[in-house]
């Protein structure tokens, strides 16, 4: 397989990783384009005994951090905006949907998100993820663990449905705690 074939094959995974980092498809595609250009220019420095996938992901990650370090998207949920969006009564749906997962993912720190995505979604080993992230294997394990815990917290029962299945009681509680959006959701 030529370098060109290798690079085309890895584009879908690069895009998925870039989207998880940038949180926006347009920015992610720009990042992938820059990564591909850089990788192409540096192809002579790629050593055959190293993992091509890890090499490409490292370039993308470095590119991302060199551009976006200053404007990192560590979004706090201080105003409860996420909680409000998630305030839907359990009668309505029986599962956490993918859109909510995407939203919750955006609330993780960059380090936690990238570790979780590389290990859990991309299926890399902790060692490979550590190589890409430039940190110790133990650090990656810890970040993945914290990211999972945080996601569970974000998607967990911190909404009106905490207070039981009684929709009347839930609507009263939602009215007091979450405001009108939650009230609408629980009264449906």
């Amino acid at each position, binding site marked *: 397989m030529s370098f*060109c074939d290798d*690079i*085309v094959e890895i*584009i*879908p*995974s690069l*895009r*998925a990783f870039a*989207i*998880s980092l940038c949180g926006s498809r347009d920015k992610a*595609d720009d990042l*992938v*384009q820059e990564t*591909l*250009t850089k990788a*192409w220019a540096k192809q002579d420095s790629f050593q055959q005994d190293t993992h091509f996938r890890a090499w490409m992901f490292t370039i993308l990650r470095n590119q991302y951090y060199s551009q976006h370090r200053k404007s990192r998207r560590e979004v706090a949920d201080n105003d409860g905006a996420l909680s409000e969006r*998630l*305030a*839907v009564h*359990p009668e*309505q*749906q*029986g*599962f*956490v949907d*993918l859109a909510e*997962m*995407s939203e919750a*993912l955006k609330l993780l720190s960059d380090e936690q998100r990238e570790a*979780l*995505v590389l290990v*859990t*979604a*991309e299926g890399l080993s902790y060692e490979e993820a550590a190589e890409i992230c430039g940190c110790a294997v133990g650090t990656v394990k810890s970040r993945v663990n914290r990211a*999972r815990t945080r*996601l*569970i917290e974000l*998607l*967990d*029962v*911190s*909404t*009106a*449905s*905490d207070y039981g299945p009684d929709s009347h009681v839930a609507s009263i509680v939602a009215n007091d705690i979450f405001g009108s959006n939650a009230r609408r959701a629980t009264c449906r």
Partner: protein
Amino acid sequence: MDAVVQKDKKRSKRGEKLTPQCIGKKLGQIYAKIVAEPIPDRFIQLIERLEAEEKRSHCSELNGRQHE
């Protein structure tokens, strides 16, 4: 009583029990969905352009050597 409350708290707002495995599965679904998308044309065009540029520079390098 506390134990019951804690157990309930481990369930998502939608009634689904959230576990690390469940989180991983959902994340995997999102990721797989993006990976399965067709490669945008801009990337194919970029690779073609880079390949063409490389060939051109390789050819001009060879021509330069022949002239020498």
